[in-house]
């Protein structure tokens, strides 16, 4: 079950119980079509090569405007990059550190323990560079929107020409999945914007799919661990409960 459907499901459950016609709350934009993510389901896991490609898309495209400040370079090890590769990504950026003995802040190459470098120092600086719009942090984006992964994929691939009856505001772009349809973000992905080392064609759809999977991982890096432990815990409780049922039957045998 996808979490973002929670409210709808709860309401639906109530309506079902009452056999009342259930009117969904009218959403402005169409519902993002569900995508087949490999990490869904009880045993679903992330697709490591896709995560690595997705990180490259983030690094080469999204990170120009969007921070992911809840991630550290050390987290890249989880994507299947080896330590040298992850340290290499870290060392590509200059991180502000200090103060040094003279009391000055200074830049040094990033380390594995550093958080992802933010493109802007603060929200004001981000708005100043982006025509007044604030590119949100993407660390939790896959969880911070209803059906976040499907929505993000729909958004990245949902740019179309504005219908003739729509007056686009200055600096805005038309996206059929964005609430209100007018979005400040220009279409971020262009064919072959990224070159994938594994030879995957960098079509817009491929890039969108991979970067969204990367976002889904970033929103909950412990998801695989959660499900792995969950399966064990459920099996254990199931066996214990069966045993407790047998015990209960035995105890009550004389009473019934």
């Amino acid at each position, binding site marked *: 079950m996808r979490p973002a459907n929670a409210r709808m499901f709860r309401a639906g459950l109530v309506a079902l119980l009452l056999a009342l016609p259930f009117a969904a709350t009218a959403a402005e934009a169409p519902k993002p079509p569900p995508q087949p993510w490999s990490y869904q389901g009880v045993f679903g896991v992330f697709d490591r090569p896709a995560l690595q490609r997705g990180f490259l898309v983030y690094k080469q495209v999204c990170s120009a405007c969007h921070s992911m400040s809840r991630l*550290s370079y*050390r987290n890249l090890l989880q994507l299947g990059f080896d330590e040298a590769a992850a340290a290499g990504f870290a060392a590509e950026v200059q991180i502000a550190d200090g103060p040094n*003995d003279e009391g000055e802040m200074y830049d040094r190459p990033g*380390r*594995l*323990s550093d958080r992802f470098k933010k493109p802007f120092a603060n929200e004001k600086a981000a708005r100043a560079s982006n025509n007044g719009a604030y590119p949100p942090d993407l660390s939790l984006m896959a969880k911070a929107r209803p059906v976040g992964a499907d929505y993000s994929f729909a958004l990245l691939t949902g740019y179309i020409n504005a219908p003739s009856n729509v007056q686009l505001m200055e600096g805005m772009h038309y996206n059929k999945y964005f609430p209100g349809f007018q979005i400040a973000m220009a279409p971020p992905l262009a064919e072959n914007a990224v070159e994938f080392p594994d030879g995957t064609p960098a079509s817009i759809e491929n890039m969108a799919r991979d970067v969204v999977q990367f976002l889904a991982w970033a929103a909950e890096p412990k998801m695989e661990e959660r499900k792995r432990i969950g399966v064990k815990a459920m099996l*254990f*409780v199931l*066996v*214990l409960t069966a*045993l*407790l049922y*047998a*015990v209960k039957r*035995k*105890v009550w*045998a*004389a009473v019934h």
Partner: protein
Amino acid sequence: MAHAGGITAHEHAGAGEPGEGHDATRRDFLYLAATALGAVGAAAAVWPFIHSMNPAADVLALSTTDVDLGPVAEGQAITVVWRGKPIFVRHRGKQEIEELAKTDIATLPDPQADAKRVKKPEWLIMVGVCTHLGCVPLGQKPTDSRGEFGGWFCPCHGSHYDGSGRIRKGPAPKNLAVPPYEFTTDSTIRIG
């Protein structure tokens, strides 16, 4: 799991069941199996709670500190932070090193040669935490008391350390610890 393990075989014997022979054995086995499995589950459930108190991933990741030794003149000492603890870095002179090398190791509470405590004799790098009960010894600042052995002196309970950070007098049981470090260049070290 308030009741976990509450049902044991002997407790149940008086519960008013006429079970005999084969049936009683089967019953006892059930109770034992349920109790044992419940105990295993309770034990397994405790671990995540305990382990959550261990250092988290971000804490473990911050375990190295780079220090530039260049500005530290002979006879000077600096204190840097590594894992939230003070690290003493002292630039020692030739004469001091030779003096320390002459110490009769056999007389020490925690016998260790000075050469074994350094990578380059002129640089002494130690965790500045008294091995008695964790105070930070005096001796880094020129005005500090350095104790009777010319090294460091812990004011909390009166432990005296020599110029190699070895315990010479007082309640501390061990020499000041040497952290893991390496020289990344001739004049910089990485601790951790």
